[in-house]
């Protein structure tokens, strides 16, 4: 495949001469949760059309740092390799992006010959580049980002949705819960709950969720609340979602920095969702005040 692409695009050759022979990769590593982090440098041979995942795979295959020491392979999360699962978000050259869709050739335009990899800073590190993304899903649970039709009864056909409404909602459905929007948001702060000695996994998780519950939902969850409130069946639970959006850590925590929409790998109109949620919250709060 590589030879085919080079033969069909002859311009690649002069460019390839400018490309470095090796890739120097700086990785911020951490052996376990809440331990000290440290930098480690790796060097791997350059190949055309690599992405950051394939860089990490080469590092794992070599399992040696640049100075020749044998080191444990770098841990990272990934699954789909096509920007759908959302699990490989990390800080690449200082910015939150997906390792799968970050191409080395493009990254070299920022820093030729070098790549810097760090775990996301707003989530607790599990090991190396792997983080605990549980808070992303805690937020989705808080806004009830689903349509509750999980039963075996025949509810008949659902309400019709016009093509215009479908087109409006579609971009919001493409969210992959990667956490990039939360990472880039200056209003979204890291919450790290440390497991106590002798604490069961369930107790630890419960304590973690309680800590998350009071904090900012994040742009993705606001957008999902807007999506499911715009759905005819989903809107039956609109009040519960509005309760979450106007509750503690709700939409009011947004500071309109609009980084979320700028870093979103799926280009979801997050700021439009946030403004729509703001409008809905305005109407809902006024209605609630006069209806009580």
């Amino acid at each position, binding site marked *: 495949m590589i030879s085919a692409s080079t033969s069909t695009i002859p311009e690649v050759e002069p460019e390839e001469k400018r490309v470095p022979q090796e890739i120097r990769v700086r990785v911020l590593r951490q052996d376990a949760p809440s331990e000290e982090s440290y930098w480690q440098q790796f060097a791997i041979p350059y190949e055309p059309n690599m992405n950051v995942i394939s860089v990490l795979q080469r590092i794992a295959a070599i399992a040696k740092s640049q100075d020749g020491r044998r080191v444990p392979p770098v841990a990272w999360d990934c699954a789909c390799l096509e920007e759908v699962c959302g699990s490989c978000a990390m800080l690449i050259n200082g910015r939150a992006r997906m390792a799968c869709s970050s191409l080395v050739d493009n990254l070299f335009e920022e820093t030729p010959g070098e790549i810097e990899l760090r775990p996301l800073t707003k989530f607790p590190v599990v090991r190396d580049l792997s983080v605990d993304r549980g808070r992303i899903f805690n937020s989705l*649970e808080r806004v009830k980002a689903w349509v509750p039709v999980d039963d075996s009864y025949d509810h008949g056909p659902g309400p019709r949705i016009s093509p215009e409404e479908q087109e409006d909602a579609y971009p919001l459905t493409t969210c992959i819960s990667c956490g990039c929007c939360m990472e880039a948001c200056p209003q979204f702060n890291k919450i790290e709950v440390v497991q106590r000695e002798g604490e069961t996994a369930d107790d630890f998780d419960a304590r973690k969720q309680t800590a998350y519950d009071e904090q900012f939902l994040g742009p993705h969850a606001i957008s999902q609340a807007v999506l499911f409130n715009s759905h005819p069946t989903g809107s039956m639970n609109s009040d519960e979602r509005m309760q979450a959006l106007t509750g*503690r*850590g709700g939409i009011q925590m947004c500071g309109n920095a609009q980084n979320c929409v700028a870093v979103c790998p799926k280009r979801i109109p997050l700021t439009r969702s946030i403004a729509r949620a703001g409008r809905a919250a305005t109407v809902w709060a006024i209605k609630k005040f006069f209806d009580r």
Partner: protein
Amino acid sequence: MMRSTVSTTSLPDDSFLGRHQFLLYRLFSLAGLIPVGAFLVVHLLTNSSVLAGAASFQARVDLIHSLGPLLPAIEWLFIFLPMLFHAVMGFVIIATGVPNVGSYSYMGNVRYTLQRASAMIAFVFIFWHITQLHWMGAPLGGGQFDPHHAASSAAVALKPVAITLLYATGIIATVYHFSNGLWSIGITWGLWTSPAAMQRANWLSIIVGVGLGAAGLGALGGMRSIDVEKAKEVETRMYKARQLLEGGISAESAQQSTHAVSVSRVSSGATDEQGISSKNKE
């Protein structure tokens, strides 16, 4: 399994801020526009009337001070208290954010960071500005503004170059904070929701910002270029005419109904030049 029981039984803490966070943040946002922002607009436009001469400015100041004993109550209710609330909430909000403009240098993020920076500059500036010119600042060596000699007392207070520069900085920070806040408020309340509408609103905030900035800096320049002696003459003439008018209606009640502070102002206003120049020496 554990998860669902937890989220339903232990809802967020029930402190005042926790229970009313949304309301407080929205009131904070509203206060920035009404009454604090609205006051800023009126304040800068009123001050820029000095460009039309000392008499024009004096006439507007007289109009405001015709509220007499009601003025302090209105000031506190509609300006100082909302401003204080906006500032306290603002500091809470600044404390909860972690600016990251170094990593994400997008325009929106730069504006977000400047919004907070300008807020802190504006807070310090406004505190100092009130101390320097408002009568409440007199015990702290300020209170230099004399409502009966509006332009001339302001001109004397603003004349030093360092003071002028501090004012220019303060005005620019305050106007930026307000006009950028205008754009932000529209998103918060859901006035403009689409990116195109936000872009249009952006133009609105730029126009408001440039216009208000021109009014504010124009007022500052206007105050500086006032001929203090001439202005004083005009103001004294206006003051005497007003006294005559009030005296014609009811000489005694006019004197008595005037607020204690404006009475003291009347006496200092009567001594004119000595009053101001001796204050300057201090």
